[in-house]
């Protein structure tokens, strides 16, 4: 690792430099190369790799831009950072929710004796969701079209949105659907067919 000579001149580090020899003796040798790899102390898992990566490129004042690259996921070291367990336990609940991000929803089917629960986050889009529902409740959902809803089936998958309205599954983009869907209901029979005619 080369020395950043330019930086030292700017800050006039010599003026505040610590010297350990007797007055009048030569400057003691200053650098040991940063012993990232040669130290015989117990290495932290994954931690040493970060300090060498990508920071040589800029001596900019904006330290923040150097840190943009997301740190590699580190192994958790017991007791580091040294924060009291009590404090950690106060912050913990929020973190797990964000980390897991599961969205469990109830799914009911007309005529079925009990409801089911699914995790919406598991599916990447409507086709996967519908297929899972078909398998779960042993029915067929038919063909979706924007104009007519689900053709060729007695059933219609619907959902209750944030405003409490029952909507047909499939009309809005998937992401919007995930964030607004509160529960699912697979309607059957005349009720289902009625959806298309109401407009």
């Amino acid at each position, binding site marked *: 690792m080369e020395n950043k000579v330019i930086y030292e001149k700017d800050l006039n580090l010599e003026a505040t430099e610590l010297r350990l020899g007797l007055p009048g003796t030569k400057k003691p040798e200053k650098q040991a190369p*940063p012993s990232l790899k040669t130290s015989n*102390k117990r290495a932290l898992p994954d931690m040493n790799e970060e300090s060498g990566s990508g920071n040589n490129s800029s001596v900019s004042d904006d330290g923040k831009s150097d840190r943009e690259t997301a*740190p590699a996921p580190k192994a958790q070291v017991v*007791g580091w950072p040294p924060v009291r367990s009590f404090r950690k336990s106060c912050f913990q609940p929020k973190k797990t929710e964000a980390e897991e991000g599961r969205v469990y929803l109830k799914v009911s089917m007309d005529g079925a004796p009990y409801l089911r629960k699914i995790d919406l986050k598991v599916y990447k889009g409507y086709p996967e969701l519908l297929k899972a529902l078909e398998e779960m409740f042993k029915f067929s959902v038919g063909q979706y079209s924007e104009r007519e809803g689900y053709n060729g089936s007695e059933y219609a998958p619907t959902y209750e949105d944030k405003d409490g309205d029952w909507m047909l599954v499939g009309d809005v983009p998937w992401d919007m659907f995930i964030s607004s869907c509160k529960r699912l209901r697979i309607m059957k029979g005349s009720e289902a067919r009625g959806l298309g005619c109401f407009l």
Partner: protein
Amino acid sequence: MNYFPDEVLEHVFDFLTSHRDRNAVSLVCKSWFKVEKWSRHRVFVGNCYAISPERLIARFPRVRALTLKGKPHFADFNLVPHDWGGFVYPWIEAMAKSNIGLEELRLKRMVVSNEGLELLARSFVNFKSLVLISCEGFTTDGLAAVAANCRFLRELDLQENEVEDRKGQWLSCFPDSCTSLVSLNFACLKGEVNLTALERLVARCPNLKSLRLNRAVPLDALQRILMLAPQLEDLGTGSYVHDPDTETYNKLISTFQKCRSIRSMSGFLEVSPLCLPAIYPICSNLTSLNLSYAPGIHGDELIKLIHHCRKLQRLWILDCIGDKGLGVVASTCKELQELRVFPSDPFGVGNAAVTEKGLVAISFGCPKLHSLLYFCQQVTNAALITVAKNCPNFTRFRLCILDATKADPVTMQPLDEGFGAIVQSCKDLRRLSLSGLLTDRVFLYIGMYAEQLEMLSIAFAGDSDKGMLYVLNGCKKLRKLEIRDSPFGNEALLTDVGKYETMRSLWMSSCEVTLGGCKVLAEKMPRINVEIINEYDQMEFGFDDRQKVDKMFLYRTLVGPRKDAPHFVWTL
């Protein structure tokens, strides 16, 4: 030498408040020893295993206020197994049996049981003050016993304890006749509280100066409580969440305007930032502010708040304040003496918004700063050198870089020079915690310059035994040394064994010390307990002296190996 009657000596000794002064006085001659012994009311025991309750009572029979500390400091960070020890029950039992007139008990990192609290409440008629810090082992039932039985209770202060909340009615157990409370802090309790009982308690305690509520106390209850106690000087809010467009919030605003005595605030365990303006009128008088448990406040909102706090002397805050926010602190809080910046992400995954820049700004703006705890993303030698120059008055300096072995990000050098500048400049430094990439050189500096250092914390630092030896040889006033994950071994441990009798304790974990080395030490020093803590490899205990010791804790003691050690602790 007895020119004065004992009463006169005793009267003179009354003016000595520090333990060290009183200890010194008792060494002068036999009659001074006797007078001092019978007039000593306040006793401090830094390690509960250094002395036994019986011997303490024999030595200071008139003790009224006792402070006890139990587990080693690293227990705070889960490095000490749960049942290691530190039980307070034997102390309470012994004092009860000897009819000690105990009035105050202050415990840190100890195991407290409900039985202990019940015995305490029943045994000491004049009991006035219970302060528990980082303790565990009790439930709210124990608190109920204290509330019900301590008729003259003035202070019940629970700080960061792990308390099992039985959701009982412990607050209702304060009898109607209890009107003596001056300080009540139950912020660390997680469960529901009987709000009516709380309000009635506050209403009948006219001397209540300090009140810290828990999360279960909502904002409307806070408003009613403040109306009942406008004389409060220290307030910890509970849940500070509300819709600002309401009658309740408006009432709160005018209530806060009536609280002219509040000098210290904390809490905000849940926050609606839009409700913060209600406290702006109080901010101008605040000398102490703790927002370190308030994760919901963003940097900009913190900055707006800080602008009102010109008299602040102590500030505890989360790193979401950012370097920019610390700049605002620097230009606003000219009286600042103590600053603690905690990580908003205590699992260290690295969203920290503060770097050395914030610290440098503070050092320029706050010349009275003497106590620092700073969790940050990175630090440079240049910054530390600047801080050292600007703030030569540090007595406590604890720097924690979240990536424990991170070098100076600009020069890629170790941080030896930076910390060296701190110890050289701050001649009164008593406590120091290091982090970042560090070689033996930093310890050379510490040994040379840190003449007043009493406590040193080392993690992931150093290259060889020389590092530890520099410290042991150089720091004459060292009392507590705690080291983890550093390459110090038997040579460092054994070169000067006499040193450990001048210290309270030494902790070494994940270092290079072997079982054989520890055995040699224990053999040479009979008045030191050398404990090997070995949670996992119990079967291999003691068979191979070359085996490295995972955790070692040694401390001076007058009473030999303790009898309450669990099976995984082996005193050599």
